[in-house]
């Protein structure tokens, strides 16, 4: 273990976020008065600095801290997704928190801290560092899920915590077993061990370790059968936090999942890709089927997020550079469309009553045409209808799967996404083809920040759908730095 000062440059973005989080906390503690809108601006500024730092460090393209983390194109791309998720979440939260009378700086600090964890997950090339990062992320989000201290919020927070701690224990055990089998927890080192030691690829200890590692990741990305918490937690948590969880956690977990399995375990890929194949199929099918039965929009989006995890798992199963490109693109577009959709859900809610039942969406299309248009766009994108970002993402992932001859996986994926149209469309049907009830509350929970976030998300969904070339090339470049 040797430490070089220059390595700090590799974690400059992480440091920036951490510093901002602490600053926000300080302002909260030492500032006077209860309403602190500046937390929003300080956080956004910090995220901007982190983005700039990411831009500068992405050319380093090397491992640091004795090979514990990498600053390469891949981590830079993931960092950018996470920073975008964070920025959009903070914008979306601004009015929401004020309306719910929970405008505390801790919220922003917790968001920034969990983002730090996410970014470490995306850069980690060391299993234990990845685990610590995952815990950093998770613990902050446990607290965020219960931020509003309502009955549902506390329950959601409790369930997420209990199951999260439970499954991360499995993951940790997996890390220990891999450490025991290979003698290292550095992913490149693991890969070398697998190539050097004969029979390691079929040793029970190593294979059990990999299986348990999958459990941990599958839990975080909400894959079947580790998804149980998802709908309850998503429904009970503050909507802005749900958006953050659904996009940020997914991005970070998939970033780490893909990097570790792509780099460390190619020797055992025939085994785990089969297992993940089953997992992917079960996840997307189960998510879509369960979403059909939902009448609560937040819950429907929760099941839809499970289904999307299934599509993304196709990328991990395929585990080629092309699949990675597709996955990165998908994660980015999913961030935009999902946060956008949740932003619309927030705007249609009332203080203390989220009004997320489908009936609350009746007639919205003509009462609030712009909001309905944006939500329609996000729904179409999630359903994978061109020319939206969601279509290109699915296209890239399934194309990669077919390229590696996972035909059935692609067929099932396409079939699933065709079926999923039904429940996305139902929201649109309610908005445009139902009368708005007389008793429906007036007014939107809107404001400049959330409007900006929604417009940005909608524009991004369209631009990524119409002219994805630039971003696809960036994702390709990111994949080439492995």
């Amino acid at each position, binding site marked *: 273990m040797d430490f070089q000062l220059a390595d700090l440059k590799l974690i400059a973005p992480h440091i920036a976020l951490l510093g901002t989080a602490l600053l926000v906390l300080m302002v909260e503690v030492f500032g006077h008065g209860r309403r602190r809108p500046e937390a929003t601006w300080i956080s956004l500024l910090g995220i901007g600095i982190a983005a700039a730092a990411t831009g500068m460090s992405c050319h380093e393209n090397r491992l640091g801290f004795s090979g514990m983390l990498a600053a390469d194109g891949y981590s830079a791309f993931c960092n950018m997704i996470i920073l975008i998720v964070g920025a959009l979440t903070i914008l979306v939260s601004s009015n929401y928190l004020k309306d719910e009378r929970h405008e505390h700086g801790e919220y922003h600090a917790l968001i920034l801290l969990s983002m730090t964890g996410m970014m470490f997950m995306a850069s980690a090339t060391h299993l234990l560092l990845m685990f610590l990062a995952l815990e950093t992320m998770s613990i902050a989000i446990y607290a965020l899920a219960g931020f509003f201290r309502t009955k549902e919020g506390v329950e959601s927070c*409790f*369930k997420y915590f*209990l*199951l999260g701690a*439970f*499954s991360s224990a*499995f993951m940790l055990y997996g890390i220990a077993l891999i450490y025991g089998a290979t003698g290292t927890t550095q992913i490149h080192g693991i890969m070398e061990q697998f190539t050097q030691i004969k*029979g390691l690829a*079929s*040793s*029970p200890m190593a*294979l*059990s370790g*990999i*299986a*348990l590692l999958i*459990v941990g990741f599958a839990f975080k990305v909400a894959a*079947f*059968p*580790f998804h*149980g*918490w998802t*709908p309850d937690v998503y429904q009970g948590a503050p909507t802005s936090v749900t958006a953050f969880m659904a996009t940020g956690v997914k991005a970070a977990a998939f970033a780490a999942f893909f990097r570790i399995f792509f780099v460390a375990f190619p020797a055992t890929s025939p*085994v*785990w890709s*089969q*297992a993940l194949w089953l997992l992917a199929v079960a996840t997307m099918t189960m998510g879509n*089927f*369960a979403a*059909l*039965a*939902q009448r609560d929009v937040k819950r429907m989006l929760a099941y839809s997020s499970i289904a999307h995890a299934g599509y993304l798992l196709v990328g991990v199963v395929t585990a080629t550079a*092309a699949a990675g*490109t597709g996955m990165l693109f998908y994660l980015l577009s999913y961030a935009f469309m999902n946060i956008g959709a949740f932003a619309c859900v927030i705007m249609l809610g009332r203080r203390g009553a989220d009004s997320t039942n489908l009936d609350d969406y009746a007639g919205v299309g003509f009462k609030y045409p712009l909001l309905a248009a944006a939500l329609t766009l996000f729904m179409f994108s999630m359903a994978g*209808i*061109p*020319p939206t970002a969601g279509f*290109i993402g699915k296209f*890239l992932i*399934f*194309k990669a799967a*077919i*390229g590696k001859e996972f035909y059935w996986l*692609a*067929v099932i994926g*396409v079939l699933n996404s*065709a079926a999923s*149209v039904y429940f996305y*469309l139902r929201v649109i*049907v309610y908005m*445009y*083809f*139902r009368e708005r009830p007389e008793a429906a509350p007036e007014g939107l929970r809107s404001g400049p920040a959330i409007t900006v976030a929604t417009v940005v998300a909608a524009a991004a969904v369209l631009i990524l759908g*119409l*002219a*994805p*070339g630039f971003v*696809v*090339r960036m994702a*390709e470049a990111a994949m080439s730095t492995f």
Partner: protein
Amino acid sequence: MLDWIWLIPFLPMVGAIINGTVGRRFPKWAVNIIACGSIFAAFVVSVASFIALTHLDPSQRFHEVTLFSWIATGSTSIDLAYLMDPLSSVMTLIVTGVGFLIHVYSVGYMHHDSSYNRFFTYMNLFCFAMLTLVLGNNFLVLFVGWEGVGLCSYLLIGFWFEDQEKAKAGMKAFVVNRIGDFGFLLAMFFIFMHFGTLNFREVMAAAPTAITAATATLICLLLFLGACGKSAQLPLYVWLPDAMAGPTPVSALIHAATMVTAGVYMIARCNILYSMAPGAMATVATVGAITALFAGTIAIAQNDIKKVLAYSTVSQLGYMFIAMGVGAYAVGIFHLMTHAFFKACLFLGSGSVIHGMHDEQDMRKMGNLRKYMPHTYRTFLIATIAIAGIPPLAAFFSKDEILWMAWSGGFKAQWALGFLAAGITAFYMFRLVFMTFFGEERHDEHVKGKVHESPWTMYVPLYVLMGLSIVGGWVGIPEALGGANHFHHWLAPVLDTGSMEGARHAAALVGDIGPSAAYASGGGGGGEGHSIIEYILMFASVGWALIGIAFAAFCYLKRTDIPAKAAASAKGVYELLYNKYYVDEIYDAVFVKGLVALSNHFWKFWDVVVIDGAANGLAKVVRATGGGLARLQTGQAQGYALAVAIGTVALLAFFAAHATL
């Protein structure tokens, strides 16, 4: 000029954007000018491009315009690009030409509607998507248009959203179409996998060497699944009759003239792939033939004027698929064009009737409308004669050519089904005419005395379409009748490349191989190959159509109180049958009642029991599964923990199975 073809889809889009954003504040005349003007401008550009194409050498008649590179990954790139060639030019002319007429018609039809600008926004948007579909130079752009027309169709079916049924119909259309899209998407993946490109010209050029017949069959069957959804073929046709819930101009534009023909266009576009896949071609021809007859029989029992036309559309689309399946691609496109003319005319005519009858759609409550609506009557009658296949009107040439191609290509069974359907078509269409425009007035009390002819914006397009229904077929008069078959020669550079050989293989699959000379006429190779059979068949089908008409006249005019005038046109048949009372009884019992009963039975059994049953059953299973999955979601954190534990054990077991100690 050809560099400007991107204007063809973009002009309607600009119209849609203007009307969609600020149209609410415009007076109606401004909305009209923007909506109709943008389509008309697109039509002008289409005509200009068509003329520009004619000046080129036949082998050089294609032009690609790349707007920008859409998806670039690795070595491959998919462009947002448009392709103008003879096939696209025919399609753009149909879409913009017929589309323009329907827009003009809508000005009158939608006059009283409160969401005037919204309607025209969707209509223009639809034209944009449809033109993107027919002009796209690769599968992905086609798919964008494909999805776009589906979306607009859905929006327009559910246009009067106050009505639950209509919203549901829109939903059904969209969902059924997605089943077809699934096939299309997969086909696209396989094409991309084998060719590394989605560009039509590149794929078609590489096809003979790049893929095996088995792969081609797979791709073609998947594409055909997509076509079945979009073009309402068995078993995915169910959405089209329901789609009639939308405003009538929508039915005319989307569900008769343009969108539903997208599947036919797509197969024609991929003709080289299909020609490599005889099995797929035989499937296409068979499904088309069965659909043609099947939908025709259903149409007999319908009393809703638009439902009859809807089933008739399904049936006519079946003919187009027969043509595709027997390798007579150009003939299929020819029928697509003539069908666009007469079916648009029929739909708009029915819209005029509904308008004049104050939203009455039940034919049992109509009758003698020719007295009140002379313009509508005249145009409707001509279009009906056209669809019945009476020479020298449009459908005679196109439908007869399809049947001849099926016969001579060795598809005898498909020919027989199509031939049967032709007579039935004549029967139910004239039944419609007689019930609506002839006979006694069975009008409801509240419309009595208020029945009126439609305004000129509505009947002028009808006359134009009527004219096209008469002369539209003359561009493709086959050599056998001394014509030059210009239409076929025009499409030859795109459609003739692989048709003969593939069709012959396909014919070998379904049965005997017909006279090889038959394809000489299909290939436009001169008149020497025509056998006497062609003429016999021609007479047979005209005769068969006349029998259908006479039969309809007999059945639906006989009991009217004004026998002389109303039945004048069919007096001979009428009196002949009247005097043979016993025969009349048998006919009535066996054929009319029998046919009606059979048709009713078909409709009840198939639509209500099988299709609705399957759809509802599927929905039930899905809901039950979804509900079951939801019940697993007990809210108990430890239940979820148990799932995690079980999942872990299962994963460990799976991995352990691969471990060696």
